[in-house]
């Protein structure tokens, strides 16, 4: 299926409406299995005890915060280069979702940090770059809210999304580039995951559940944004007819 095929909002809406029931079902199923793995079947950590269970909501939220920003940057690039009519809609509607995941990564990280490190927050490279990502999300959303003229708002938002993308690899590699209190990557590594299988599978399932939750909510949010733009067009046409 080509990008041009989906450029037509009617075709996109038809596809989204057909996909959504399956995406919701997959999200619910994965969440049930993931939460069972996270809270029931996985063992406590030999050092951290039960506190390790925060990992199953913290790590997927952090993955999603980075993934959603990458989606935003990719959509912004598509809008800028190909003038794809739905690319701005995709980027704009992804931002609040990414901000929510980023907030959850910071907040659950803080709840994990207090019992393990003895501090709610440290200005460490990983935490600081994640905080910058949160500010980028908020700044991006503020642009859409503050600039009334949609074409100008879209242009400024695209540039901010693309410039801000530089922070994504900084977040990912911050634990390797600087001395950090935060632990290094233990799943996506060149030499394979270092987490024991009984802890790894619930983490991966929760990661998939968050991914499908994002996909479901993103499609719904895009559908709503298309309706909002249609309402605006009708209202402008009515003013023109008067």
């Amino acid at each position, binding site marked *: 299926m080509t990008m041009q095929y989906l450029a037509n909002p009617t075709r996109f809406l038809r596809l989204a409406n057909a996909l959504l029931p399956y995406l919701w079902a997959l999200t619910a199923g994965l969440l049930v299995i993931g939460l069972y793995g996270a809270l029931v079947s996985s063992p*406590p950590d030999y050092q951290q*005890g*039960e506190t390790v269970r925060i990992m199953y*909501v913290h790590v997927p939220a952090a993955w999603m915060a980075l993934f959603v920003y990458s989606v935003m940057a990719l959509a912004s690039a598509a809008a800028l280069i190909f003038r794809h009519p739905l690319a701005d809609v995709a980027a704009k509607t992804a931002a*609040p979702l990414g901000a929510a995941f980023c907030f959850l990564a910071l*907040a*659950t990280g803080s709840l994990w940090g207090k019992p393990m490190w003895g501090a709610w927050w440290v200005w460490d490279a990983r935490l600081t770059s994640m905080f910058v990502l949160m500010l980028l999300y908020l700044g991006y959303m503020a642009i859409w809210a503050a600039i009334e003229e949609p074409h100008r708002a879209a242009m400024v938002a695209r540039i901010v999304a693309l410039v801000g993308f530089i922070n994504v690899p900084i977040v990912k590699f911050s634990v390797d580039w600087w001395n950090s209190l935060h632990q290094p990557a233990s799943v996506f590594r060149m030499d394979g995951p270092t987490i024991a299988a009984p802890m790894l599978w619930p983490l991966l399932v929760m990661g998939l559940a968050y991914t499908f939750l994002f996909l479901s909510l993103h499609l*719904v949010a895009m*559908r709503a944004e298309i*309706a909002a733009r249609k309402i605006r067009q009708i209202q402008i046409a009515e003013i023109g007819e008067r």
Partner: protein
Amino acid sequence: MDFAAAHAGFVIAAYGLSLVVLGGLSAHILLRDRRLRAAARRLDGERGDTRA
């Protein structure tokens, strides 16, 4: 999960916060979608009536 374990409150808070944020966001997005699609259909219908 041992709810009597040390720091269990932090685990419950993390899961509770995730539930509230993701649940609240989902509800907001779903309600906005329903409201805007209904408004678009209504306006579309009104324009159709006016033209006819």
